[in-house]
């Protein structure tokens, strides 16, 4: 009975309640209270991480290296466990615990929520909406998200999965942009459809386990893992399809993805960041937590389908992203391309690919979190989400440009950024067993460079221009289409007045200052720099030294591969049977 996880779920929920009754407090105080509550899980995440790390050498020592062997009585899949009876009639328990995958995701949530609150500090909300309610819902979302990742009972996982929708629905529907109602309804219907499928599958799983176990049905992860290989394939396929559909919608994979651009773009920036950065990973997390280990035969049988959808997602997401005109929708489509990489890593059954997929979930949260928040700050300044309304922002806001560039580089997975490690692991792990899929996916890394640098060029480079930067009047003078394409001077004698015919960039090749049109707004504020800096630092740090995160993920990745009934490489095998405890 370890109280850490219940506290990490409960404290943000308490915070949410406090925010509900905070109408009479000054707004500033209320905001600080919310920030305080959001920092508590971050503080608690430290002992959670340390406890898990210390338990690593013995974590899998008790488990047999093959999933078919009978497991010992006490399974130590999870650390910091907490379990009480909940619905004894169905053997449902309120069980929490973390393994390497959920640990890093919970840490990501605990880190992102305070950052999101800090970034939303002066968010402009729709008329009549209070920031107290907004922060309260974000806290409620945090508690629910931690609950999803910490649940070690399938029923609890399902409940948390559905509970998570509620704050997000209100965040989009009440605090979002112009088309918020449409987006929120679409988001809710999609998720609900997935949730219902999952409920049906969950009941099926319970019944199937009751057929096998003499002591009756169960929904406990560890117990289900032990009997997973005994569920007949036909049953597995039915159960799998329900879960997989729910997760494919959540992830989202093509063709279940069209809710995400709407929801992501219409959601207020903070909620959108959590939606794209964390909430969507529940889908891929579900693949790794439920589909692979609990339904191994079905996962193998249908892996080709998910590889296909993943690779389509990588290529199609990238191509569609390149054609977006709305900068927030653009970021969501880049995410769809990246979810393709994560999904691919889940379904090739090698340690490297699964490790890479999990690391990718974290890294994508950091990189896209940074990009999404920056885009929010940009669009809040300019008042427009249209790419065409911006230009030359680097000169106006150099720090914003620099941060955006770092986020872009992480999206492109340039070495030295965190995403490189995860993309590399996914691809190298895929190539060793499925070279054709890996080659197709590798084309995606060129496309990523194309779309990301195109956006960077469009918004941040060139002369300062665009109605969102200079205001509608100024944009007519210095604006859009009449910038010179090259600086090579036209060969003409000096009497030729060609040089006054077009609007010039505002510095010459040596930067000799020429009068530059005045932008309506400036660079990031100190608060904005402060909230984004942790993300930037982590992006670089985890690119150079990913070992602290990888060493937590790697054993559980190997374990997941073994549980899915796949042969695992020799070193992971050794690790699992405890001969090489603690690398």
């Amino acid at each position: 009975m370890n109280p850490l996880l219940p506290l990490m779920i409960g404290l943000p929920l308490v915070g949410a309640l406090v925010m509900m009754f905070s109408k009479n407090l000054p707004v500033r105080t209320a905001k600080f209270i919310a920030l305080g509550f959001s920092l508590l899980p971050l503080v608690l995440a430290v002992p959670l991480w340390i406890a898990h790390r210390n338990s690593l050498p013995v974590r899998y020592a008790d488990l047999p290296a093959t999933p078919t062997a009978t497991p010992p009585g006490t399974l130590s899949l999870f650390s910091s466990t907490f379990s009480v009876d909940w619905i004894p009639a169905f053997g449902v328990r309120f069980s929490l615990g973390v393994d390497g995958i959920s640990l890093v995701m919970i840490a990501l949530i605990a880190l992102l929520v305070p950052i999101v609150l800090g970034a939303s500090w002066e968010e402009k909300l729709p008329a009549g909406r209070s920031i107290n309610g907004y922060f309260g819902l974000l806290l409620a979302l945090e508690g629910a998200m931690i609950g999803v990742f910490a649940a070690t009972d399938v029923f609890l996982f399902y409940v948390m999965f559905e509970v998570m929708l509620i704050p997000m629905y209100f965040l989009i529907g009440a605090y979002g942009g112009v088309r918020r109602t449409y987006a929120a309804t679409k988001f809710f219907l999609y998720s609900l459809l997935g949730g219902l499928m999952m409920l049906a599958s969950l009941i099926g799983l319970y019944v199937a386990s009751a057929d096998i176990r003499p002591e009756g049905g169960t929904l406990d992860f560890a117990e289900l893992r032990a009997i997973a290989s005994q569920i007949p394939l036909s049953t597995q396929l039915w159960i799998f399809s329900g879960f997989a559909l729910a997760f494919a919608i959540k992830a989202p994979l093509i063709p279940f993805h069209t809710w995400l651009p709407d929801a992501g773009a219409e959601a207020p920036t903070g909620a959108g960041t959590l939606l794209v950065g964390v909430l969507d990973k529940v889908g891929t997390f579900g693949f790794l937590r439920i589909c692979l280990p609990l339904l191994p035969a079905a996962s193998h049988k249908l892996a080709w389908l998910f590889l296909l959808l993943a690779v389509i997602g990588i290529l199609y997401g990238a191509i569609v992203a390149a054609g977006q005109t709305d900068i927030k929708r653009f970021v969501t489509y880049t995410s769809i391309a990246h979810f393709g990489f994560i999904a691919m890593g889940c379904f090739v059954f090698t340690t490297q690919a699964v490790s890479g997929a999990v690391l990718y979930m974290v890294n994508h949260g950091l990189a896209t979190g940074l990009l999404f928040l920056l885009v929010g700050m940009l669009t809040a300044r300019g008042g427009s989400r249209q790419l065409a309304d911006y230009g030359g922002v680097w000169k106006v806001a150099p720090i914003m440009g620099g941060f955006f560039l770092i986020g872009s580089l992480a999206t492109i997975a340039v070495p030295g950024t965190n995403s490189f490690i995860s993309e590399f692991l996914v691809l190298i792990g895929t190539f060793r067993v499925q070279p054709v899929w890996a080659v197709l996916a590798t084309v995606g890394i060129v496309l990523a460079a194309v779309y990301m640098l195109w956006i960077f060029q469009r918004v941040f480079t060139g002369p300062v221009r665009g109605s969102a930067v200079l205001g509608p009047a100024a944009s007519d003078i210095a604006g859009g289409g009449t910038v010179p394409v090259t600086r090579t001077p036209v060969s003409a004698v000096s009497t030729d007045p060609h040089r006054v015919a077009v609007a010039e960039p505002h510095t010459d090749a040596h930067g000799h200052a020429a009068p530059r049109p005045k932008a309506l707004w400036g660079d990031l504020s100190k608060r904005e720099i402060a909230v984004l800096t942790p993300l930037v630092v982590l992006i670089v740090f985890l690119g150079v030294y990913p070992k602290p995160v990888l060493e937590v993920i790697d054993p559980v990745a190997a374990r997941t591969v073994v549980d899915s009934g796949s042969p695992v490489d020799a070193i992971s095998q050794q690790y699992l049977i405890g001969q090489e405890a603690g690398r």
Partner: protein
Amino acid sequence: MTQMVAGVPSGYVAAPEGWVQYGWLLLVLPIAGAILLLVGGKKLDRIGHVISTGLVVAAFAIGLGMFFDLETKLGPMSQQLFDWIPSGDLDIGFGLQYDALSMTFVLLITGVGALIHIYSIGYMAHDPERRKFFAYLNLFVAAMLLLVLGDGFVSLYAGWEGVGLASYLLIGFWSDWPSAATAAKKAFVMNRVGDVGLALAIFLMFREFGTTSFSGVFSQLGNASSGTITTLALLLLLGACGKSGQVPLQAWLPDAMEGPTPVSALIHAATMVTAGVYLIARSAPLYDLTPDGQLVVCIVGAVTLMLGSIAGCAKDDIKKVLAYSTVSQIGYMFLAVGLGSGVYGLAIVHLLTHGFFKAALFLGAGSVMHAMNDDVDMRRMGGLARRLPITFGVMTCGYLAIIGFPFLSGFYSKDPIIEAAFAAGGTKGWVLGGAALLAAGLTAFYMTRMMIMTFFGDARWKDLRSADGREYHPHESPPVMTIPMILLAVGALGAGAFLAIDHRYVDYVAPVVGAFEEEHGPLSALAITVLTLVLVAIGVVAAFLLFGRRAVPVTAPAHVSPLVRWARADVGGNAVNETLVARPGIWLTRMSVYTDAKGIDGAVGGLAAGLGALSNGWKRWQNGFVRSYALSMMAGAVVLVLALIVVRYS
């Protein structure tokens, strides 16, 4: 016998001593400079360039110390810094290896790098973002050093993309200019295409050999099938083509001249673009096993050196002439590394001498631009020799070196490659050697043309103004710029003799890339030297007759032969990219966006609309009349009965 230490390649010794134990500083110093300058903000505007330059000079000093230690007493060494990407049986360490090949590059990068840093202090003196410029330069030096020092293909890849990033940032440094931003993106994307090749090669190595370190891969090549080895060789070549501006990925390099000229000198002439040559030389054990792969490398080199020198003949932009010259000279190096068995060393010699004379030429061009209000159009220049005497002297040294004037650098480094090409034997030898020979003549032609148009003839600029409306007042550059130029010019004159006489360098690098075996082709060495000199002389004279004897028109003649038009249009490179990649890409994007909005989302929306319509229809039945409910119940009962009958009796 030293004890086996994990992660230490065979033939290398761990636990470095002497200067070598500070090898990691080579990476840390420049990267620290980059971070300091970027994070430090405006406070460092006044001293940032000094810090940056000082760090590169310090790295050069460390490199020199290491070089002598390794050379005189230690032998090849390696250093494991930390565990980088551990996952399952994949264990990629972050290690550096110091041997003849990597130390050569360390000295080239930090040496030429330091000179160009110093030059940039003057060249960028008036730029408001000079601090950022030096930060990027330091970033480049760090990434390039990682590229050559890494002990495995993944570290190399990290450096490889790192230099690509630095190149992107520096090409687009004047981001105000849309052309600079476009060129930067083009460079990055085309490099990425090459990087895919390198990445796939790494994946294939892990699949086949279970490791990605140089020593691990090279020691297991014997177990691999010839198909695997050829595939690896071609994938690596794709990466090399991207980085080194070789056909078919050459089109980005001339555009990269949008960057400040010191960048062109350092990155796009002396160091980064030669990384492809380094990659192939480093992978010598692999290429030695695949004659097919080597032949493709040779063909790429030969085609590129011809196309590059043809395009160079028609360009009026002084930097683009030099850029195509670089493309063509790297073609020579590719040709040489493709010839294999010991010719690698000759390629590296040419790489080094090219580093000197091309950097000198580019810095000279920068000095000319400095004098000419940043104009690059040679048709607007002329008669600058007397105005810019030092620049003229430096560029003359570089010019004589590149055309292979007897006893200067190019003479010692290029002629052996031409000889080796002829010695390849048979038709292959004649074709490759002939191309190399012909391109030597073309090189003499376009370089002479460039020198004449810039420095001789009428001072055409007297009647002209630059694009920003100023008159031209050409003046010599300050000493902070001319001194590095002079040092490079000395290298351009003497480096070839120093490195090539007695095969000094070739023997030095032999432990890494294999010993040099002199083969004799159908023509004697003397005959080839004479032939080369004759062709060079023809090129010089032709250029003199065409451009020195008559006035150069300020506007490029419009009515020219198709050959000139083709050369002006970048020998078709951009047109091919445009037709094969850009247009279909744009078309595909538009189509996909349409499909996504109308097709997939449309289907969902349609489903919702259909459901709504259905509900609307059914709603009518709920009209509150008992009689209609009774009717519907009866209808239902009838359907049920009918269904029962059908099931029962069919």
